[in-house]
């Protein structure tokens, strides 16, 4: 699951800036925190964030699928090739420091991916556009951000269509890794070329509908913001700044 999922959870009802601020705080927090325990508390916070949005199961599944190759790579790099002393687990001798390092790095990746998947699933791109429009942000910048949120689900939808079409024409996806790699061509090329051709038409269509105009767009239904949400966003900012201050101070010490 990657992309917006309509719903009525507190995160769905929240101002999109609040949802994005929470995801942003997880991202920045992941790099500010250095110990395994702190990082894994952040993973739990990201999971709680997804649970509040009612998208925990789907987000967690996708986050694990996306971060699994990174976990494997981290354990090979740091666990097997890391410094002494080693912990012997059956036939494998793992570096204690390397495992701790892999846990921190892997935890960071998992927290960031989970936080952003939950934000993507609960922050409506339309509400974000309306919020930014109400704040007077030029449409070019608004579109850049909002289309980034919608590009993955659109590409995935298109990829499924191309896959089905190519399979109807005899494309076989099984077999050896080389055969699978070869099968990527008929999938990726139409996906990329089709997307480029459509971008041309979309640019013309958006231009014809005044998207590139100089006038300030009218926000038709800007999302509700509240003092509580504004306080939450500022608090997150202060917490992130404090975490970085603490990190740099402990680095100097």
């Amino acid at each position: 699951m990657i992309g917006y999922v309509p719903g009525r959870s507190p995160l769905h009802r929240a101002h999109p800036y609040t949802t994005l601020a929470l995801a942003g705080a997880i991202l920045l927090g992941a790099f500010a925190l250095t110990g395994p325990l702190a990082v894994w508390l952040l993973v739990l916070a990201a999971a709680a964030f997804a649970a509040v949005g009612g998208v925990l199961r789907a987000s967690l599944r996708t986050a694990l699928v996306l971060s699994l190759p990174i976990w494997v790579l981290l354990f090979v790099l740091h666990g097997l090739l890391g410094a002494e002393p080693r912990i012997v687990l059956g036939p494998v001798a793992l570096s204690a420091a390397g495992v701790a390092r892999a846990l921190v790095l892997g935890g960071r990746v998992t927290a960031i991916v989970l936080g952003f998947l939950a934000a993507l699933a609960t922050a409506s791109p339309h509400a974000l556009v309306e919020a930014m429009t109400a704040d007077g942000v030029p449409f070019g910048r608004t579109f850049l951000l909002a289309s980034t949120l919608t590009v993955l689900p659109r590409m995935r939808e298109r990829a499924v269509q191309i896959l089905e079409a190519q399979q109807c024409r005899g494309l076989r996806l099984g077999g050896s890794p080389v055969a699978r790699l070869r099968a990527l061509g008929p999938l990726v090329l139409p996906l990329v070329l089709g997307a480029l051709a459509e971008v041309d038409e979309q640019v013309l269509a958006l231009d014809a509908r005044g998207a590139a105009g100089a006038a300030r767009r009218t926000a038709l239904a800007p999302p509700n913001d509240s003092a509580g949400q504004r306080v939450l966003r500022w608090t997150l900012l202060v917490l992130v700044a404090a975490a970085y201050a603490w990190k740099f101070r402990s680095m100097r010490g």
Partner: protein
Amino acid sequence: MTALIALEHVSFTYPGAARPALTDVSLELAAGDVLVVTGETGAGASTLLLVLAGFAPRVVGGHLSGSRSGTAQRCGVVFARPWTQLTGLCPTVRDEVAFGPASLGRPRDAVLAAAGRALEQLRIPHLADREPGQLSGGELQRVVVAAALAMGPDVLALDDPAAELDPEAADALYDLLPAIARAGTAVVVATPDLERAARVATRGVVLDAGRLVAQGAPAEVLDATDAAVIARAAGCPPPLPLDVPALVRRVAR
């Protein structure tokens, strides 16, 4: 009467192309016109549409020589594939249609009123609260035309608008064009579908390798019978082949 758009000896070359896509084209477009542009694939009909609508070279780049003038302030454009013309950011058809007027910075009430009028004009007010992604191709193409009309364009340019539609939806779309023209918007359609186009056109233009080879009444230049197509290909001036109605017209002149 002043022309909405007048092209005089216009030639246009796409960026990086060795040959011009249009060569020495002159024509005028007036309010109430339903001008059908046709020709073989690659004849330049779509390019002529882009030049008439002011997108070439302003948006697509390239080089234009000759002159393009007229009183038209705003041009709407509709392409064959309706899904490429959606913003991808609007949860309802009403929002999608209102996107253009909102881009002009009109007050909220005026934007919603313009969207409502356009939906009425296309006979789709019942779709206003539907999600664009869940509509059929025919419904979606009507939404795209409504979105273009909501901007209040002087000229509506449609590039093979029924290419992706079933015959019933294509008929329904073409049947709407005369009413749009009567309401004051000049309509230009580039299409190889002469049967439907001849039914609604007030004038026809035939292109061949970027050159305008015939221009006149639909019965003269858009006749889709085999004999007429062969006569045109052989360079016989209309009205050839000389059937009884054409003979009567010729004698009457």
